[in-house]
C-alpha cells in the first residue's frame, strides 16, 4: 500500500493534516471554509503550486470537515481535538 507524507498543524478544535504529494493547489478548500481559516503556504505541492494550511482565521478551525469533503484529491484530513 502506498503511503503519503503529511504536514500537520493545529488550529482551534482541529488538527489539519495536509498531504503535499496529493495537494495540487486548486484553492477550493480556501473558498469553502466557513471560518476563513485556511490560507496559502510557501511549501509546494505535487504540481509545484503552493499548498494550504489552517490557522489563518480569528476563530480557528471548528472541525466541520467541509475542506476534507470538498477536496478532490483527498489531500486534507481533519482530526478533532478532544
Amino acid at each position, binding site marked *: *500500500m*502506498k*503511503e*503519503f*507524507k*503529511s*504536514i*500537520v*498543524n493545529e488550529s482551534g478544535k482541529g488538527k489539519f*493534516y495536509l*498531504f503535499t*504529494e*496529493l495537494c*495540487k*493547489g*486548486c*484553492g*477550493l478548500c*480556501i*473558498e*469553502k471554509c466557513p471560518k476563513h481559516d485556511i490560507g496559502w503556504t510557501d*511549501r509546494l505541492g*505535487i*504540481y509545484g*503550486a503552493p499548498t494550504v494550511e489552517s490557522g489563518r482565521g480569528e476563530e480557528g478551525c471548528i472541525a466541520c470537515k467541509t475542506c*476534507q*469533503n*470538498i*477536496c*478532490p*484529491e*483527498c*489531500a*486534507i*484530513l481533519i482530526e478533532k481535538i478532544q
Partner: protein
Amino acid sequence: MAVELTNVAPAMPACWRKETKTHKFCPGCGHGIVLKALGEAIDELGIQDKVIFTVDIGCCLLAIDFFNVDTVQTHHGRTNAVCTGIKRATPDKICIAYMGDGGGYAIGSQHLVNAAARNERITSILVNNTNYGMTGGQMAPTTLPGQKTETSPYGRSVEQQGQPTHGPEMIAAMAAEGAYVARGTVAKPKVLKKYFKKALEAQMNGSGFSFVEALSTCPTNWATNAKKTWAFLEGPMAEEYPTGEFKVPGEGGKAE
C-alpha cells in the same frame, strides 16, 4: 512548526487505487469529488468485487485506473451500449457507465436515450461541466446561454444553437416505472453520494435504469480561480439546472 508524518493515511475511499494517486485531473476539477462520492457509495454498499466500471472518451477517460475494480474504456459515446452488453452477459455484476456531457448528450445521446427506453439495469453517471474539457473548452450541448467558450466567443446564442440540454428531465419523462433519475452537484458531495447509493441500489434490486447527472467544475477551461469557480457552479449553473430527484422507484419525485 511543521512535522512530517507517515503513519496517518489520507481519508480516501477504500476502493480507490492508491498507487495511481494523485490522479490525473486538473487542479480544481470536479471529477475528483464525483469519484470520491462514488467510491464512498461503493464502499458503503460493499460491492467493490462486483462492480464493472466503463468510462467514455474525454476527461472521464482519465478515471481508467482510478478504482480497484474492473474497468473498460469504450468508443466515444458508446459507454451505455458497452455497459448494457456487459450487464446482459453477466447479470450478477453491477455495471456503471461513466461519461461526460459530450459523450452522453452529444455523440452518445442515442445510446443514453435508448438504454433508458429499454429500461436497462445499469447505472449511468454523467458529469456536466458545460463544455468539452479535454479538447480545450469547446461549446457543448450543456453550455449555458451567453456563456463564452472556445467555439462561442460571443457567448452561446439561443437563436442559433438552441437551449441547453436538460438530461435528467428528458430521461425522467421517458423512463419506465422503477427507474431512478437525479441531478446532484459537487458543491454538495454528501447529497451526491446519497443519489449514487440510491442509483446503485435501483440496479441491485433490478428495478430499472438509473441515471445521475453531477454538476461539476472546469477551472482550466472556464479560466476561473477558486472563488469564481464556486460562484459559477452555485450561481448560473445551479439556476439553469435544478438539483434533486426526478424519478424514484415507487414514488413520483420532483426537483427540490
